[in-house]
């Protein structure tokens, strides 16, 4: 993967505000997001493609789709 223009987008959860409801888990087409011990949502950056479905679904709006500088 060349760096520079084609930066990969990933979901990023603000864990301090996540309510661990699991709405994001239900909509992720790649099962890239899971609830860690009932406390917050955890994204697997290797699987996540940054599609943003989880961010749209999250009732607390605590997921951001951000560009990852390097992978």
């Amino acid at each position, binding site marked *: 993967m060349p760096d520079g223009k084609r930066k990969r987008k990933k979901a990023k959860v603000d864990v301090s505000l996540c*309510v*661990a409801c699991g709405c994001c888990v239900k909509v992720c087409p790649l099962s890239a997001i899971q609830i860690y011990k*009932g406390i917050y949502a955890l994204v697997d950056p290797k699987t996540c493609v940054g599609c943003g479905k989880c961010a749209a679904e999250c*009732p607390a709006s605590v997921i951001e789709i951000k560009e990852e500088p390097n992978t």
Partner: protein
Amino acid sequence: MKNQKKHWYDFLWIASLTYLILGFFNILFAWLGLLCFFIPLLISFGKGTKSYCNRYCGRGQLFGLIGGRFGLSRKKDVPRWMKSKGFRYGFLVFFFLMFFVMLWNTYLVFSGAQDLKQVVTLLWTFKLPWQWAYHGTLFHDGVAQFAFGFYSVMLTSTVLGLVTMVLFKPRSWCVYCPMGTMTQLICRVKSGKDR
């Protein structure tokens, strides 16, 4: 939702809806609602997960369906204060205080100090006459009083949830749902993390 095949528990919203409807016909069915209190607690205490919220909660699914699929929601972000710890824990405490008031009233009927009141109290304030759903009980009047009280709790939270569903994201009730907050708290304590 390609790889997300439906499971039996994706239909538990039917149970939640049925529960609400049954309360209009026979208030004693309200007792079944205790399941929505004990199952999440048992799961979080026992397994340290929120799989009740994540999988089985029919109420969350119902909001997701009405607000999401049927589009009865503005799909706006909830205000910041609503997801703050202060509000969430504050609401949890308030909710339980009100719950204990309800238990106290039930106790008063059991002890004979008070008569059965055939009302459903909405939003802790409005007393709705509900005698049509009461046909007597084989048990003590207190059993019915608890049913009226518990149904009040369930109806109140549904109404609140519907309001925030329309105003904000479909499942915004889950942001401040006392059961959700409590199970998350239990999981947090259990895992020994303080975040």
